[in-house]
């Protein structure tokens, strides 16, 4: 099970909480926050329903899912070849490619590129990779201000806060809180909120439109991530809803995209699979409002691509764990996760929350901190995340494996409880504990090797009569 690291695994870094508090501690706090719980419940419930209906519309969904999984596995197996091919294609199309081993290197590259333009302000489109490396903070230290332009990210940035959901990062804020944040803080960052701003969503969106429009027109450098990169053609792809992405990708003179090396697909044709899998899994729409694709320097723009490792090659070296790199960040697994629904994204102490965060964060960041050691316990192993995952990542199996590698008795005892997984009545708890059974049917009573660390402290339960999913649907997560 040892990970093969080449280079300096110790330098892998990720923004996040201090790591002092464990998942159960964070979750216990979140569970007491009833606004967060209410919002999350409403949000995840709505998206779950939408996703199910648009996924059900496609007769070939299982085929697309198999293709998506295989394309990613094939890419990861040949990642060196495809990275080199991508570099060639982007360069040929007039773009510049940079390679970053870790967060510090990526931040330095971007900072230098921005400085070379002579600008001190940049606009940003929501990107988990730049959040992961703490780019805004690094730019700030060098006198460069990064303006987030996604509505939710704007809410998070103005509120001096952390994102709580991959897709809807401000899901923990309600409309009156958002109004409050706009009225108080917009003027500190630029155009103030309109007078007599109401808390109607349309009015709040209009306030954001006005606040950001001036900035889009004036700013000369933009920083983005990307959902996909096509090795064959050098094309980058960004899916979004609001149009702030298009603003950032189109208007500024210089565009810098920071992208994890796992975002690659080999051929142009492969996009036909992911453009179907991602929007339907993510926002539960047949298609998201805007998807931009560009190849190299476009329409006179200067283009830089920063390829980011930051621990990904370490994950790639792990036979079971590498499947986490297939993730296309759709957030479907968050929306079906009973633990996430109760604890919220912040409890995971990482830019990658929810089930995928529970397997990705400890692998990327290592299990040095209490928090990261406790993350693999932030699950009831019900298997819902695996069922909805458009690239079939077997999150429960990876969780069990990670638990085996790093036992965390406190998290194990407290994890489910503090995560809101203690349902008020004993009967519910008993039932909750049986859920893992569905998964564990597949494994022997005592797992061999390091996995024993997990099974040693658990009585493997009897197979429940009713599956977790059935129970969850019937009782609305124990609410009835």
């Amino acid at each position: 099970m040892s990970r093969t690291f080449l280079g300096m695994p110790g330098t892998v870094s990720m923004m996040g909480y201090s790591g002092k508090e464990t998942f159960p501690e964070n979750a216990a706090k979140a569970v007491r926050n009833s606004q967060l719980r209410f919002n999350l419940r409403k949000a995840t419930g709505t998206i779950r329903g939408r996703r199910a209906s648009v996924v059900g519309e496609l007769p070939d969904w299982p085929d697309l899912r198999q293709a998506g999984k295989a394309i990613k596995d094939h890419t990861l197996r040949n990642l060196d070849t495809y990275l080199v091919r991508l570099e060639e294609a982007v360069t040929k199309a007039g773009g510049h490619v940079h390679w970053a081993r870790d967060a510090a290197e990526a931040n330095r590259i971007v900072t230098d590129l921005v400085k070379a333009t002579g600008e001190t302000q940049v606009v940003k489109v929501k990107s988990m990779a730049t959040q992961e490396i703490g780019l805004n903070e690094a730019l700030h230290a060098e006198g460069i201000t990064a303006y987030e332009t996604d509505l939710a990210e704007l809410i998070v940035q103005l509120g001096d806060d952390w994102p709580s959901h991959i897709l809807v990062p401000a899901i923990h804020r309600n409309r009156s809180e958002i109004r409050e944040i706009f009225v108080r803080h917009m003027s500190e960052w630029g155009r103030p909120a309109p007078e007599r701003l109401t808390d109607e969503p349309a009015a709040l969106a209009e306030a954001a439109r006005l606040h950001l429009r001036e900035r889009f027109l004036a700013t000369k450098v933009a920083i983005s991530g990307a959902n996909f990169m096509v090795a064959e053609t050098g094309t980058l792809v960004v899916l979004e809803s609001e149009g702030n992405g298009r603003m950032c990708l189109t208007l500024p003179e210089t565009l810098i995209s920071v992208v994890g090396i796992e975002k690659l697909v080999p051929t142009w044709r492969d996009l036909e699979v992911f453009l179907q899998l991602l929007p339907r899994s993510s926002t539960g729409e047949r298609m998201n409002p805007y998807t931009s694709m560009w190849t190299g320097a476009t329409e006179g723009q200067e283009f830089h691509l920063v390829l980011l490792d930051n621990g990904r090659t370490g994950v790639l070296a792990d036979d079971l764990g590498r499947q986490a790199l297939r993730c296309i960040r759709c957030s479907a697994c968050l929306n079906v996760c009973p633990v996430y629904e109760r604890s919220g994204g912040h409890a995971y102490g990482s830019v990658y929350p929810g089930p995928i965060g529970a397997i990705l964060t400890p692998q990327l960041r290592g299990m040095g901190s209490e928090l990261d050691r406790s993350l693999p316990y932030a699950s009831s192993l019900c298997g819902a995340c695996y069922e909805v995952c458009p690239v079939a990542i077997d999150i429960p199996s990876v969780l069990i494996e990670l638990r085996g590698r790093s036992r965390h008795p406190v998290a194990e005892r407290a994890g489910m409880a503090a995560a809101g997984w203690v349902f008020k009545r004993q009967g519910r708890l008993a039932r909750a504990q049986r859920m893992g059974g569905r998964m564990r049917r597949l494994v022997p009573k005592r797992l061999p090797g390091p996995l024993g660390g997990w099974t040693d402290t658990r009585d493997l339960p009897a197979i429940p009569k009713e599956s977790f999913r059935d129970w969850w649907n019937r009782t609305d997560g124990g609410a009835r």
Partner: protein
Amino acid sequence: MSARDVILARVRAAVEGVPDVEIPRSYRGPEPATDGLVDLLADRVRDYKAVVHVVEEAGVAALVADSLAARGVRRLVVPEGFPETWLPSGGFERIGDEPRLSAADLDTADGILTTCAVAVAETGTIVLDAGEGQGRRALTLLPDYHLCVVRQDQIESGVPGAVARLDPARPLTWISGPSATSDIELNRVEGVHGPRTLEVVVVTSG
């Protein structure tokens, strides 16, 4: 060793001995066009709260005139190569992008009229590739109103057909309904930064 060499070496060490996989492509590929595609596209675009009209070739100019009048559009950007026969003879101020309009100028236009490269019926999507009658990407971004004319023979049933028809070397924008956000308590609000109104005219081949 450069960062590039280190990362590539790490990758090679990580995947050494890992078996490769075949990619099963049993999902639906490009499909031949059927008569139902016009209606399907119209329905699916309407689902995004966009306005859709279906007309015959001869009726396009009159319909465009009505739409502009209904929206009160005065200053209209018309990209180079937009078919003259689809343009009403008057009633608006025509703005071209030659020489290139500044972003600030574009911001003051009332609307933009374009063709498209491909449309996807199943997802209600129009795709622009900055070609004839479409112009560069900013043109369909800054004005608050976008009127797009789609020819029936440009409609593909699904995403694979559209991907096969598009040229990756061109800048592409896939548009499915007006700009929207669900960031506030998950209520969908049309129009944050892109055009708040999208109107699509589908021209049947008769």
